[in-house]
């Protein structure tokens, strides 16, 4: 196993710059997830680690060795692709053995390694089938099997679950995670699905327009987003944003929303009186107030998920979402009173999106 170091890496396709001075370290045995919206450069970065894209500037090293000019086969990596990339004319066994054959390993050893991997992934009954005879989940497992037989220094995953249905995705998520716990292989995993990122990562890297927005553990990013982008991207349903102006009098701070409502702020936030801010809170950080207590919110849509209830409503002139653990007997069109929990309030500078205050832990 090995660590990966990425130093001031740039990538341009012609005149288009897709990665800007990316610095990143992946520790030995870590499961790092690169997440971001499509076009943010996450797949490009992964392909650069793999050696499938040239590095326009900067340096990438794997296990302390600079690999910028090494072809993929000399980097000792394995990659799982979004569309599985299984060789259609080879059986599962041949697919998994392909790389070992190229390395000219002895036949009995290849057979043993393939069967060991197949055992781990429950692929034994399918070894002599062709990829077209397998279901999506089984194909995905073969793709992983092909990666693990090689026992590489680094595993790279390029949105491996996005072609699977929702239920299978959850199942495969657990399988990949438990495989990682067993192998302790350094892994870089690309996804646009923040739930996948949250549930699988040791650390998450949020990328946006070719720049790293924030790096941290899943809960760190959830509780302490560094800017509006990360705050909006991590979490589902996403964080609520209400634009307003920060007010400070004596030691008391509050935010005056566009419609004049005063919203509570805990502690002493950075920022000055009169500064334009974005008042933000997660959907679960709202309390139902008694009539007259809290901010009136007109219900637009109610989505009961079974486990909890999502209520979309108009709050200070903005559409927000509130999540309640209990089942509510309210209807669209009715008005409820909501009170943001002060400990869960984040303030962001409206001008540059940077955080002023993170409620939790403050």
């Amino acid at each position, binding site marked *: 196993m090995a660590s990966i170091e990425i130093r001031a890496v740039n990538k341009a396709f012609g005149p288009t710059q897709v990665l800007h001075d990316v610095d990143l370290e992946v520790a030995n045995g870590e499961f790092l997830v690169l997440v971001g919206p499509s076009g943010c450069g996450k797949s490009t970065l992964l*392909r650069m680690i793999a050696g499938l894209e040239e590095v326009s500037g900067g340096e990438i090293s794997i296990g302390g060795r600079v690999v910028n000019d090494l072809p993929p086969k000399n980097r000792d990596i394995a990659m799982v692709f979004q569309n599985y990339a299984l060789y259609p004319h080879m059986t599962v066994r041949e697919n998994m053995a392909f790389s070992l054959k190229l390395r000219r390993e002895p036949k009995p050893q290849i057979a043993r390694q393939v069967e060991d991997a197949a055992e781990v992934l429950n692929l034994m009954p399918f070894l002599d089938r062709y990829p077209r005879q397998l279901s999506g989940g089984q194909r995905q497992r073969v793709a992983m099997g092909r990666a693990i037989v090689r026992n590489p220094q680094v595993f790279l995953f390029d949105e491996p679950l996005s072609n699977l249905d929702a239920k299978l995705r959850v199942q495969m998520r657990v399988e990949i995670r438990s495989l990682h716990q067993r192998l302790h292989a350094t892994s870089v995993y690309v996804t646009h699905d923040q739930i996948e990122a949250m549930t699988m990562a040791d650390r998450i890297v949020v990328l946006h327009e070719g720049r790293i927005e924030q790096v941290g553990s899943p809960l760190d990013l959830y509780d302490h987003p560094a800017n509006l982008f990360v705050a909006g991207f991590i979490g589902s349903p996403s964080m609520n944003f209400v634009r307003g102006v920060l007010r400070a009098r004596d030691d008391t701070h509050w935010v005056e929303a566009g419609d004049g409502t005063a919203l509570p702020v805990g502690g002493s936030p950075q920022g000055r009186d009169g500064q334009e801010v974005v008042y933000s809170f997660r959907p679960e950080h709202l309390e139902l107030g008694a009539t007259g207590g809290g901010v009136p919110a007109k219900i637009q849509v109610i989505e009961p998920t079974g486990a909890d209830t999502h209520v979309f409503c108009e709050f200070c002139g903005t559409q927000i979402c509130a999540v309640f653990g209990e089942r509510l007997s309210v209807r669209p069109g009715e008005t409820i009173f909501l009170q943001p929990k002060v400990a869960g309030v984040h303030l962001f500078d409206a001008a540059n999106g940077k955080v002023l205050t993170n409620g939790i832990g403050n």
Partner: protein
Amino acid sequence: MTGNAELVVARPTGPKTPAKGLIARLLLRRGTIVVFCVLFAVACITLLPFYWMFSSSLRTMENMFSLPIQWIPDPVNWMSYVIAWQAQDFTRYFFNSGVVAIAITLGNLLLCSLAGYSLTKFHYRGRGLMFVLILSTMMLPLEVTMVPLFLIIKQLDWANTYQGLIVPFLVDGFGVFLMRQYMLSIPKDLIDSARIDGASELRIFWMIVLPLCKPALVALAVFTFREAWDMYIWPLIIITKDSLRTLPLGISLFMSSYGTSWDQLMAIAVLGTLPMILLFFFLQRAFIQGIAATGLKE
């Protein structure tokens, strides 16, 4: 035509009554019958020259052009096959045609797929222009390039040689086009995956790309083999030695200023058609798949 038949079924709307269902079925049946009639007629028209060739080979010379036309030869004259085969060294001509057609076919399979691979899976300056140039060679008929080609072959001292017959046709614009179109459908991830697995570029081509191109390769093989097997003008220009004559040149020997032995000519023509028919018969499934997948035919 099949589309029309489907339209007829799809047209009835509203609640289905048994009567309406029956009408739809009848209309569908009528549509199918029409389709089959038209296809049968077209098939007959296509097969007619072949039948004419076969029946002429079995007719005697006296009955060759008799009126009314003798569709079924009477008497049946099988001797024309024996006489024709002995009249010239046809074993040699068949062998020559076979060598030339197989060599040209293999050359095209290899070189056109290499060119197609380069044009689809590698990025380099001038790639698009290169493809346009290759395509533009398809616009030039052999008659245009014949004279310069002949001069080149003459300078190389390749007249009356196998290489003179083979080398000018080892790669062809159409073949490159066909392979390129097919290779566009091979996902790049497969190639990347093979790169990561440790395969060299040539091995990727050989072990991943070529096996996946089987339908296109079969289509190209059938096209190329047919063209090479039929080639007449070029061998006529550069071959003067009897031992290097190809089959079409051999067949032309039956035509002379003293007359044409139609029965023998047709007998050899029948034998000359057989390899093509057999080739197509064994490869037709993959051939049709290859043509359909390259978008050349819907």
